[in-house]
């Protein structure tokens, strides 16, 4: 296997951090410590991890309402993420974005996005910036989206733009089988969403989204193409979300237990553990020490978020604009 020891450790750490962040965040949300709606991505750890393993802070990613895994893969700190979900002043967006708008521009993270499909052209725009500045070799745009967004017109416009302008874009489709409660077999008119890439003149690749090594390999090739100025690639990763569409969604109303069990047998983290154990690439002791440190990190994140101050009410009026000459305050 052509992955360095450090990278393997990063992959395991990242996937486990995503898993435990989501589980911890969900637990805290159900306890009432979160201030709103949150969407979990546990089960879907392999796609963002396998892709972002190839990226640096100079590369940009666009994300979705189910964005925690993308944030973590791009290097965001779980303290500030948890605080944002809790609506605190110390959160990544000062408590004004919440789970659906976590972003970190210093890390090349263009923001989770609450409108399905809306972040896709943002990643295309980031890639356009790279092309205009002549830095494609070190700055690509990755757009994460799901099977639900694959039906949005803006994806198709973005694919066409990226292709005709030969931009360094990766269309990273996380097909978890469900758009909210609607199954993709009902809503998507193709067996593989990636087959649509052909119509836009770019490679379309289908990979097992529960296998981080498969994602890593496919993404590596696609990102190398993008950095070489050879244009966009579409990667569809078949994956599964373990929990509901949002924190209070009961999946038993629309998914069969057998199906959920089937995917849990394919679990991305267990698959990683089996693979590295079999190939003697990482010891169980090492993996346990990573897991233990993540458990500590989650305890810290919750404590940090709980103990953080609320935003000052005056921040309500901040940052609507860089500058604006009329009052922002409402009329009273």
């Amino acid at each position, binding site marked *: 296997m052509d992955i360095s020891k450090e990278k393997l450790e990063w992959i395991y750490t990242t996937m486990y951090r995503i898993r435990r962040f989501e589980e911890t965040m969900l637990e805290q949300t159900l306890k009432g410590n979160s201030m709103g709606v949150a969407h979990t991505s546990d089960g879907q750890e392999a796609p963002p991890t396998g892709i972002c393993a190839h990226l640096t802070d100079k590369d*940009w990613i*666009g994300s979705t309402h189910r964005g925690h895994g993308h944030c973590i893969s791009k290097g965001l700190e779980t303290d500030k993420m948890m605080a944002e979900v809790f609506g605190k002043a110390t*959160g*990544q*967006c*000062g*408590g*004004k*974005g919440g789970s659906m*708008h976590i*972003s*970190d*521009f210093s890390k090349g993270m*263009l*923001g989770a*996005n*609450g*409108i399905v499909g*809306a*972040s*896709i*052209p*943002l*990643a*295309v*725009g*980031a*890639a*356009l*910036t*790279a*092309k*205009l*500045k002549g830095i494609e070799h070190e700055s690509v*745009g990755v757009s994460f989206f799901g099977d639900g967004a694959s039906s949005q*017109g*803006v994806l198709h*416009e*973005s694919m*066409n*733009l990226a292709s*005709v*302008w030969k931009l360094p874009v990766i269309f990273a489709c996380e097909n978890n089988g469900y758009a909210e409660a609607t199954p993709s077999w009902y809503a998507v008119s193709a067996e593989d969403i990636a087959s649509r890439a052909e119509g836009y003149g770019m490679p379309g690749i289908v990979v097992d989204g529960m296998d981080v090594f498969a994602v890593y390999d496919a993404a590596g090739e696609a990102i190398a193409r993008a950095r070489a100025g050879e244009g966009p690639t579409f990667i569809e990763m078949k994956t599964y979300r373990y929990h509901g569409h949002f924190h209070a969604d009961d999946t038993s109303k629309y998914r069969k237990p057998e199906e959920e069990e089937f995917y849990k047998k394919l679990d991305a983290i267990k698959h990683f553990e089996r693979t590295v154990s079999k190939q003697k690439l990482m010891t169980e002791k090492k993996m346990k020490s990573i897991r233990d440190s993540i458990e500590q990190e989650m305890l810290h994140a919750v404590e940090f978020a709980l103990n953080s101050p609320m935003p000052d009410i005056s921040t309500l009026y*901040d*940052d*609507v*604009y*860089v*500058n*604006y*000459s*009329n009052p*922002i305050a409402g009329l009273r």
Partner: protein
Amino acid sequence: MTTSQANNPLGPGYDGVAGSEMRFRDIFRDTLRAEMNRDDDVFLMGEDISGGFDKDTKEPLDAWGGPFAATKGLVQEFGVERIRDAPISEAGFVGAAVGSALTGMRPVVDLMYFDFVTVAFDQLLSNAAKSRYMFGGQTKVPLTLFARSGAGTGHAAQHSESFYSMLAHIPGLKVVVPSDPYSVKGLLAAAIRDDDPVFLVNDKKLINLTGFVPDEDYVIELGKGRYMRRGTDVTLVGMSYTSVVCQKAAEQLAEIGIDAEVIDMMSLSPFDEDILIESVAKTNNVVIVDEDTPRASMSSEFAAIIADKAFDHLDAPVKRVTSPHSPVPYNSALEQAFMPQPADVVGTVKNLLGRE
């Protein structure tokens, strides 16, 4: 060299400066060129902004030079990377412009007809306008968009809208409405240099009008209106092309002994509350003239501000002259009836002041 006319003031400080009479369309293009020369991060995107490519050489033909030939010649100067012809996909390329603005560029988007705003509306509302706020001030969106609005040219219902009120309603967006060559130079330059997303709404009826333009580099501060004409009897409030309508009405009113003051708002978000209040405090009567439809419009907003903050100065109710609550008709007689005309303004002022 010519100087501005006393009856057509450009704004404070611009009497007697060096400049020339220019067409609106020419100074619009010259300003785009100047801003692209000024800042390498500025680039232009839109449908047919050069228009046409040679199949063999792949070179741009500049056959259209942009909708209404607004950008003619720029592709030869700046090349196809910075004068970027876009496929017909407004949501896609406006979204890409937002992404590009978020990552360090200063894109300028030509949306062709103002009506096409709605095709890209989610990108404008959910990404351009909200990114700075929902990300807690981490970022900014230095994006400029422009498009042609307005009835009167036989473009019918889907190419003639003036619903800039829909954009002014959105926190995070700024909206400017030039009304002559002087204001389009200053507002376009200000929009491109501004760090917030700004939409410049360009009424088609202005494109071939001429007016005095100072040679010097200048910007018009966003949110400032100006007096186009001083008067004491009634305030006429115009925006975009209705500032021209108000000036024509003021000339007709002068013939019957009514001394009208004309305000050109120039910016709709932010907008100049002070100039409205200052003028109404002097004239005690106001008529707001708007080609946008009347419900939840800029005219209703200005009326509310005047009622709230200048109520004691009013001798009569705030009056509005607007288009009807209808789509824009095709037939030219219907279309002319749809648009606020100088005669409509004159009639409203005469009723307001109790003059026959």
